[in-house]
């Protein structure tokens, strides 16, 4: 997870995605609330449209990502369902005020179950 600020650039998010080995970057604000997500696809689209590494990320953040409420009885099962429906690989679990409690990863759920 990255904390959102005005100065974050596309290059910062690329570096994060490259080092964290997840294909999506979840952004929180300085109160731990979900601010949005940026996927690898969003970055590719931005570059295709002429953005550079130093371009600020403001315009490519998706502020309405797929999320799971903390009230979910089976967050991991829901994550897999959302992956099947929308192809999302990381799903933030948030309370009613969009405070992030955890971020579930499809890769981790599957490897916990089937990996060695």
């Amino acid at each position: 997870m990255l904390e959102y600020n005005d100065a974050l650039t596309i290059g910062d998010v690329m570096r994060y995605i490259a080092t964290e080995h997840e294909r999506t970057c979840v952004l929180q604000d300085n109160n731990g609330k979900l601010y949005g997500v940026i996927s690898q696809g969003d970055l590719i689209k931005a570059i295709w449209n002429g953005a550079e590494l130093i371009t600020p990320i403001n315009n490519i953040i998706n502020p309405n990502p797929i999320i799971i409420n903390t009230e979910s009885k089976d967050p991991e099962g829901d994550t897999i369902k959302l992956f099947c429906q929308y192809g999302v690989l990381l799903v933030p679990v948030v309370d009613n005020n969009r405070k992030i409690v955890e971020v579930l990863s499809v890769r981790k759920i599957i490897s916990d179950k089937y990996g060695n």
Partner: protein
Amino acid sequence: MKLLFVLGSRGEWGYIRPLIQLAKNSNHDVEIWCANMSVLNRFGKLSEVIKQEGYPVVGEFYTAVDGDDNLALAKSFGLVSLSASDWLMNHDYDWIIVSGDRVEQLAFVVVASLSNNAICHIQAGERSGNIDGKNRHAIARYSHLHMAANTDAADRLIRSGEDPDRVKVTGAPQIDDIVNQQIPTLLELKERTVVSSDKFILSVFHGVTEDLQASKEGIDKLINVLTKIKLPVIWIGSNNDTLGSFIEKKIISSLKINDKFYSNLNRLDYLSLLANCEFIIGNSSSGILEAPTFGKPAVNLGRRQADRFRDVNVIDCEYDEADISVSISKALSVPFKKLCLQSTNPYGNGDSSRKILDVLETTEINSDFLIKQITY
């Protein structure tokens, strides 16, 4: 006829799209000249979107200047003038068609007038409560034909010195769009996760250039009130003008689990949100112009839409938390909802484009027509 339409923002696209479609269908030669927000990726690059939909975009110009103050808009005025001058030096039209009240429309109309083109202004003569109102009436001085949405606007144009023969009451073409378009159902919006609940509030808030401080406080107050209400809120982001990014950050940080924020939403999805919301709140003209078609209450904040001709659906209120709360209660009350459903839209019933095109087709452009006298 050869027609040039000037496009700067998605709001104007709502005004002119039905007319462009009709003009195309009537075998007129239509061209669209795009500048400002309409060519920016940040706002969904409307010029590209409409090109893909088959509309004839002939020029795309970067004229927006980044910066959160009024001088950025002033500089943008200059860039539109430069680009428009070069364009009109090399292209001839029967009609230049401008719409609404934004600064790029004014800049273009000044250039078109200096180069002796016939100019038609759509959505002419209305009042709006800030710099946009000045722009709209300045555009009128340069225009040869004024398409007024209602008699209130037409009377104002005539009182301000425009020849009554040049003023036509046609309704607002953006209403044609609403009446005649197939808009997505709520179910479709839910399937695409545009909304996540059946009942919601639609909130559209723009920074007001003339009153930065009130806008900054206003968004805080609106957020404070809306976060206390149980209904989810679908927020539509601000334009590329003053305060845009400031407001955006405030809104995103205030979102609750079923709320959404869109800085750019396609027109049909927007109309569906308007058709399905409990009420619309904020300072967008949509609450006044478009909400009556769907019989929806509109809570209108502050001065941005001050004095714009309005239907019974509009509840005006100040940037004051208590006032906003009371207005919301009224908007949600059953008798008020009923009243809104029974009213008709004073901005027209869906045949404006036809009326405008009829006027353009039957107006003879000669030297008498191009030499315009103010009547006072």
